[in-house]
């Protein structure tokens, strides 16, 4: 297990270094950082001095190493647009996106898994077929359409929930959370539901397919032959065997959700990283873009590693490498 963990960590670190290289190349060679930073009146001497101070005359490897060292310490330089520390901007926006994605993920699992089990177990019933049909709609509706429909329904017509912003937030250290205030939670509902619709249908369809497969397996038939009640067979013995792909999907999709959040954040005026990134693109704010790229990649890599480790936790067969050889005797 320890060797497995070390291997996974080393993999993750390697991937991050590669992404950092890409981010660095973008940062260093897409436009001249000096030109971006100085104003028109700066003299040639000013520019040369700045170039020297930024270390842009050093060798490529030195500069890359410095970029990585700084990034690890959370130093991504100064935003070209508003001269603020990039990390401060990100810290400001990250909690909003994180909470949105987290809540959307929880919704997708809490709703999607039971729906998947029910549609698999009662696959011939009307309800299951209606849900299956509905899920096709859910998969094909673009999330901004869902968002706009939700706003029209629950905000404009019914007036139950706010349509934009984060509501009141509470500051915990540098983290600003909307989860602790009623208005913050209310503001979270529509964007999170909108972001999760696609995800719910994905989870539901995956669980359904896996359940149908698992319910046919010998150990399910044998569990029934042992006299295990049907509900326990379905929700304990079968579902547990379906969770692996759900974990993978969820892990992979959180990355996608952060990307999708871009759209949702725009529709709901949600002050998250997606909005920050869109502004950065508009103003060719390279340091912010590089930081966003690195951060999103970091999240992807961390999730992948966590998924792998969770695998080993859910499935004992992956836990010890001796498993396969151990099966031959004993």
């Amino acid at each position, binding site marked *: 297990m320890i060797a497995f963990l070390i291997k996974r960590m080393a993999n993750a670190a390697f991937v991050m270094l590669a992404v950092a290289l890409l981010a660095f190349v973008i940062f260093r060679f897409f436009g001249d950082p000096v030109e971006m930073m100085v104003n028109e009146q700066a003299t040639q001497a000013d520019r040369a001095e700045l170039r020297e101070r930024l270390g842009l005359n050093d060798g490529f490897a030195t500069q890359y190493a410095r970029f990585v060292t700084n990034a690890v310490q959370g130093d991504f330089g100064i935003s070209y647009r508003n001269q603020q520390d990039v990390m401060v901007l990100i810290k400001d926006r990250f909690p909003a996106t994180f909470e949105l994605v987290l809540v959307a993920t929880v919704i997708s699992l809490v709703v999607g898994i039971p729906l998947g089990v029910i549609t698999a177990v009662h696959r011939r019933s009307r309800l299951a077929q209606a849900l299956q049909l509905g899920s096709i709609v859910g998969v094909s509706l673009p999330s901004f359409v869902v968002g706009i429909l939700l706003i029209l329904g629950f905000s404009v017509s019914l007036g139950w929930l706010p349509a934009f912003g984060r509501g009141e937030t509470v500051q915990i250290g540098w983290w600003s959370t909307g989860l602790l205030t009623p208005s913050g939670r209310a503001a979270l509902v529509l964007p999170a539901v909108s972001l999760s619709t696609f995800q719910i249908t994905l989870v539901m369809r995956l669980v359904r397919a896996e359940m149908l497969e698992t319910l046919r*397996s*010998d*150990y399910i*038939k*044998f*569990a*029934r*032959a*042992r*006299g*295990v*009640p*049907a509900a326990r067979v379905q929700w304990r*013995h079968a579902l*547990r*065997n379906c969770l692996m792909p759900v974990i993978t999907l969820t892990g992979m999709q959180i990355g996608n959700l952060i990307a999708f959040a871009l759209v949702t954040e725009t529709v709901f005026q949600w002050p998250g990283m997606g909005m920050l990134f869109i502004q950065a693109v508009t103003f060719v704010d390279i340091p912010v873009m590089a930081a966003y790229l690195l951060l999103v990649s970091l999240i992807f890599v961390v999730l992948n590693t966590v998924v792998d480790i969770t695998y080993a936790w*859910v*499935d*004992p*067969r992956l836990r010890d490498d001796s*498993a*396969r050889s*151990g*099966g*031959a*005797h*004993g």
Partner: protein
Amino acid sequence: MSDIVLDIRNLRVEFPTRKGVLTAVDDISLQIRRGEILGMVGESGAGKSMTGMAILGLLEPPGRIAAGSIHLSGDRIDGLDDRALQAIRGRRIGAVFQDPLTSLNPLFRVGDQLVETIRLHTGLSRSRARARAKDLMHEVGIPAVEERIDSYPHQFSGGMRQRIVIALALCAEPELIVADEPTTALDVSIQAQITALLRRLCRERGTAVLLVTHDMGVIAETADRVAVMYAGRLAELGPVDEIVRRPNHPYTSGLMGSIPSLRKDVDELQMIPGSMPRLDAIPPGCAFNPRCTHAGPRCRRETPRIDSPGAACWLALEGEVA
């Protein structure tokens, strides 16, 4: 009261399909007594598993029991609802399936699967159920029970896994064990150990056993009586030693030819040419007639049937096939 544990009468299992109704088990009757092993033998597709599943109430829809009755120690158990069947499966009837590699849930420790089954049927406390699980593991011959009880199925060999499966079947001291090809997936060297274990348990506990297999050799070594199945029908039924020594059905004679150690006792050593008909192509009369060297006109007209020991063959029943 008699000591008949399983009493099957005129059982018929059907599968409605788009092309018509297929009869997988066609009018079979048999009994098993306390402490007796009935071997059920026949080629793949003969309807052996369907018979076992019908007894367990585990036929997959649209498969269903279309006629006949199944009694367990006098109680009728066919046609019960799922709730009532849950109180029978695992409690009064234990099951052992073919492949021990796939019979156990890979994600649960074997001890937990044993404790679950024990508690479902006995209401013992967790710790007492665990103690009983250990006893059972010990009884089926698993060494170092203390260490092994918390292992996962993949950490056991095939033979050991089948022992666990048998322990699971024994959790509630069932009256009957339905063992569907319990040794087919195992190495030859392990097969004998597993059949010996089944035999010992049957003798010691007085459990009735339905031992399903396509291997006449296993039957000859393990069973007390044998039921030979062909195309969903009972071809021959009787004590193992008699049938092995002097089979009355031409199909049984052919099966004997497939046991190397028994070949010297049989005249026709070659395997039976041809193959068993598919369910949608069973010929009229005796299902075996296209392959039978003795077949006569009557064999193609009328179906020979038995509901007690004997051979479902006109030659054996009437002495002639005209």
